[in-house]
């Protein structure tokens, strides 16, 4: 791990990471749809990628875009880089009851339906600024979305957070990961720890 001049942390970019960020930038700039295949080439190291998942390629692509909008790359990698969409798809298939699976797929369809109604494009094909604008409405349950849509977005956020903060990057780089704390101290200044604990 290197210390940058700003004091932030980053790792030297691997060719894979460069390819990823190039793809994302291109997708963002050109308003390109990130196809299932394009996304499949991303997050190649995520353990759930090779496991059975609930979501069809288009649904997986939309989940990937939404997850990265929820937890984007900052001074640490974002949801896309840890393959949060694969994790969500896998956990939905294996651990979620049928009703929850249906709600999730219906929630995705609803977002695309609203996006189409507003401009004929699917959500992933919208310009990033337009995506963000729609998500603000979704987050607040405001038109063109409603309260039920807002509830879906809260669940999506919790799924994304779960997938991200239980990933190696999310747990160990974004948060403080103490598998063996070595004892309990009841009075520690927050500034000494700095962040939330992953566990």
């Amino acid at each position: 791990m290197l210390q940058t001049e700003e004091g932030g942390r980053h790792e030297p970019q691997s060719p894979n990471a460069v390819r990823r960020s190039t793809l994302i930038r291109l997708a963002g700039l050109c308003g390109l749809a990130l196809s299932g295949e394009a996304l499949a080439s991303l997050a190649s190291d995520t353990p759930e990628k090779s496991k059975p998942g609930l979501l069809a390629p288009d649904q997986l692509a939309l989940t990937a875009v939404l997850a990265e909008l929820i937890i984007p790359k900052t001074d640490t990698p974002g949801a896309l880089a840890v393959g949060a969409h694969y994790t969500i798809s896998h956990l939905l298939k294996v651990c979620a009851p049928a009703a929850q699976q249906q709600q999730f797929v219906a929630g995705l369809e609803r977002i695309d339906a609203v996006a189409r109604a507003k401009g004929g494009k699917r959500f992933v094909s919208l310009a990033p600024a337009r995506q963000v604008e729609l998500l603000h409405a979704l987050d607040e349950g405001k038109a063109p979305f409603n309260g039920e849509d807002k509830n879906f977005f809260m669940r999506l956020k919790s799924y994304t957070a779960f997938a991200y903060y239980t990933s190696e990057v999310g747990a160990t780089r974004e948060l403080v990961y103490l598998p063996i704390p070595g004892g309990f101290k009841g009075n520690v200044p927050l500034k000494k720890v700095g962040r939330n604990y992953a566990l």
Partner: protein
Amino acid sequence: MAQASSFYIKDSTETFDAIVVGSGITGGWAAKELTERGLRTLMVERGRPVEHRSDYIGEGVDPWKMPNRGMVDLKVAEDQFAEQRKCYAFDEHTKHFFNNDRDMPYSTPEGKPFSWIRGNQLGGKSLMWARQSYRWSAMDFEANAKDGHGVDWPIRYPDLAPWYSHVERHVGIAGSRENMETLPDSEFLPAFEFNTVEAALKAKFDKSFAPARMIMGRCAHLTQPAPHHQEQGRGTCQARNMCQRGCSFGAYFSTQSSTLPAAVATGKLRIATNAIVHSVLYDPKTNRATGVRVIDSETMQVREYHAKIVFLCASTLGSTQVLLNSTSSSFPTGLGNSSGVLGHYLMDHLYGAGATGRIEGFEEDFYSGRRPTGPYIPRFRNVTEQQTDFLRGYSLSGGASREGWQSQAWKPGFGKDYKAMVRKPGAWHFGLHGSGEMLPRFENMVSLHPTKKDKWGMPQLHIDCSFSENDRKMQEDIANTAANILESLGAKDVKKEIKTLEQWAPGLSIHEMGTARMGRDPKTSFLNGNNQSHDVPNLFVTDGASMASSAWQNPSLTFMALTARACAYAAEQFKLGKL
């Protein structure tokens, strides 16, 4: 410890001095105490062997390396763990320590659910227990005699006090000396610390609510191992609080970390695993138990083991199930059941009621490590006088913590600001939840189902248990009182909670007690004051089945002390030729 594997047996023609059925908290203690007193002892366990450390397969595995990030495959959970999945400790890291409900079913009457949480392996539930460890007080042993519910305990606090000390020194109990009559002190290792918010609220609480007091929860963790703990191979608690996965540091008490090494060291212990006890063998000519009949869980082969003394430590309902199935012309309704009380007076603790609130300020304060216990308010209700329209009382436990990513993630927003918000710990919250005493009632009972059997041919247990009016009133008071306390301590947004029967059925507190109770009178109780059958002198039951009331404290420490005391008595009587 040495590999226990050399002590495993399958067939044996030996007549042991003692057989101990079960290997959990009480089975481990019985094995230790009996072997250390020179008795050749066979421990019989229905489940598989679990070796300390090497079989803790869920321990220390990072979430991203688990197949489902710690969540259990829903199909597996629904098909095999329909009840066990309701337990807070059941997850992908621990599920192999929980009972398979499909293979070991039981029945309940329509509309009267009961959650029977079990651990069927060597070590039993001692591997996944919550480790809270409290003595009972004089008041608790007198309660039945005082208000007439349940039979009088045949023992009083001073009878058990030295045995509490005996087990505590071996186990290692972290706690603080308080000199409270309602909760006698144990032999302590240093207590865990309060965090900053808890310390501030404790100061306020102790001042405003005296003589009630907020103390640190006492638990079976080595905060500072003594030399004899280190000799057992046990080390200091690392505050991981993932104890139910097993602990290779041996920092919490379990059969594997503590009692089994001691028993093995005597050279007098043998262990038969995968051996489901079908019944206790009985000789009417001598009026003695002569051993146990077991079914091999893998081959279905039926075998017998023989001994001069039989200790049942198979869990509250496990021991009673075996006794109910041990019928003869002398005892047509279950071995030693001349009183007819076997199976009756089932109790659990009243959980599921309490309150939480937000604490303002303390934004620069945090903590480090995951403390495996929390603040505890010993019983204050109906102590010196009857204050309420329900009998007996409860403790409150809980503590303060800051919102982690799991809570933060539900807050408004997305994107960089959201990620930055989740990165920081959120507001402090303080919770207080009750553990209330449930009265012993005849109608709360278990019996053998007349027709249903499990895959090994054992009659299924039929569990008929419900909360009473007293229980419901107490839950109301727990929630109201917890909320009042939090409000008076300055908490904001205080929310009360009482779980419904669907959310928290009897049994889910996993403190099931009674069904082979102790008492003074052979006509109204199953066991005498030494956990000895009134009817069959060489038959002992020392697990939760023996309890004549439930008190309000977590019961495991009391089970341990009762077991050690009964073993000392049995060994002495055995040597005198009286058993």
